């Protein structure tokens, strides 16, 4: 019972165990090599990881991190700007609302024609998708700051630069973290699609290639690697948020 309690408390472990149970049940009910058993997959995964999977994962990770980094560098200042200035908001937000829901994935061929078939097109694609999450998150974070909090900070004698440091940045930080979590999920699925074109590196490529080769054990190992990467990135976000936004986690 104690062990069960401990497992339930550790949310990651708890999630992994449930997913593996479902996976195992599917495996025995489907009775086909299309869904290999968890055990065989893990065995293959550990075999493939050091020399093969890690390289593909690294290629994908570099693309994701570059895209997220660029999106933050462009999206945060823009979000600050339209959040702080009513005029900027009225000019830019309508444009954002038209561009945001467009299925940017459809533009990959165009990016590839304009930017070449290499990494630039793939990274650009991800940036055009996630930058809106960040921009809108930052803008809304600013809009949610109560007027009274501005007044209170001004009346303390805080300067204009101090306003950013003591009021605006901390107010948008939790929003930024939520936007980043969403963005990471979206980046991974976008990348999976983009890596089917003009590359031989990346976990998306690896999975689709294994599928074409009808090697389901390889394919599942790839999926496992991809989901572990996602899990790792999300946990990292949690840790960073706990460090930088401790007030969000108070009971």
């Amino acid at each position, binding site marked *: 019972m104690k062990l069960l309690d401990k497992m339930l408390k550790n949310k990651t472990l708890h999630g992994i165990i449930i997913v593996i149970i479902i996976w195992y049940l599917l495996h025995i009910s489907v009775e086909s090599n299309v869904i290999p058993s968890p055990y065989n997959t893990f065995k293959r995964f550990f075999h493939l990881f050091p020399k093969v999977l890690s390289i593909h994962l690294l290629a994908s990770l570099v693309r994701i991190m570059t895209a997220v980094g660029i999106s933050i560098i462009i999206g945060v200042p823009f979000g600050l700007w339209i959040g702080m200035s009513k005029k900027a908001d009225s000019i830019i937000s309508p444009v954002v609302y038209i561009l945001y829901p467009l299925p940017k994935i459809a533009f990959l061929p165009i990016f590839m024609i304009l930017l070449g078939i290499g990494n630039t097109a793939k990274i650009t694609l991800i940036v055009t998708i996630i930058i809106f999450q960040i921009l809108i998150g930052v803008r809304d974070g600013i809009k949610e700051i109560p007027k009274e909090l501005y007044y209170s900070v001004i*009346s303390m*004698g805080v300067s204009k630069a101090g306003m950013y440091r003591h009021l605006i940045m901390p107010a948008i930080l939790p929003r930024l973290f939520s936007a980043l979590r969403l963005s990471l999920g979206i980046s991974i699925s976008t990348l999976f699609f983009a890596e089917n074109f003009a590359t031989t590196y990346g976990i998306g490529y690896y999975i689709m290639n294994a599928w074409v080769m009808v090697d389901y054990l390889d394919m599942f190992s790839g999926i496992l690697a991809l989901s572990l990467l996602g899990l790792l990135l999300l946990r990292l976000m949690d840790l960073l948020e706990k460090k930088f936004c401790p*007030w969000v986690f108070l009971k």
Partner: protein
Amino acid sequence: MIRVRNLNYSYGSDLVLSNINLSIEENTTCTIIGPSGCGKTTLLYLLAGLIDYTDGEIYIKNEKVRGSRRETGVILQDYGLLPWKTVWNNIALGLKVRGMEREQLNKEVSEILRELDIQELKNKYPSQLSGGQKQRVTIARTLVIKPDLLLLDEFTSALDAMTKENIQNLILNIYKKRPVTIVFVTHSIEEAVFLGQKIVIMDKAKIKKIIDNPYFGDVEIRSRIDYYNICLEVRRWLEEGKNHETP
């Protein structure tokens, strides 16, 4: 200390304050009471220099108010404390932005924590405090910059009756210990009479009546009959004219 002359203020086309004239002497207290929406908060924001005015004049210590003033401490109803800063950092903020040195700052913050008896709260965040504790911290944060003018907007309205009296007594004691001019905005007649040497009664955008309160400063005032007489007078002024408005 404070001189307001022919002050008018409007939000768009709504006249919120109309021809306000008011003088408050240095190191006295003044309470402003009136029905909801009559413009009390607006008047306080104007005194604090948080909103700009064009029609009329406001002088504090013979200087025209333009923007927020360093020696004015403001306590707003609910939103004063920054949720991302601990009690200590909230209190230290005003000193930090004034460029005070670390050692001196630590000393001053510790002192004010001790004075208001909130040392054990110093590492907590605002969301972990009770209403009364929050108000103590807000008061500490405002006093630590050594203001000569304190502006408070309904600073006890969210508290239960006992805590309310505690905080009111605390303010009165602070006032007696150090000279400072205080303006309170309040909804409560009892509070207006307990804390105001001068009681300003407002009605829709106007000052209706100013009452001098000779009993101010007596902590035992709450158990005296004269106190209730003044409360009754304030109530009569507040209710006067009400019957004509509602047909």
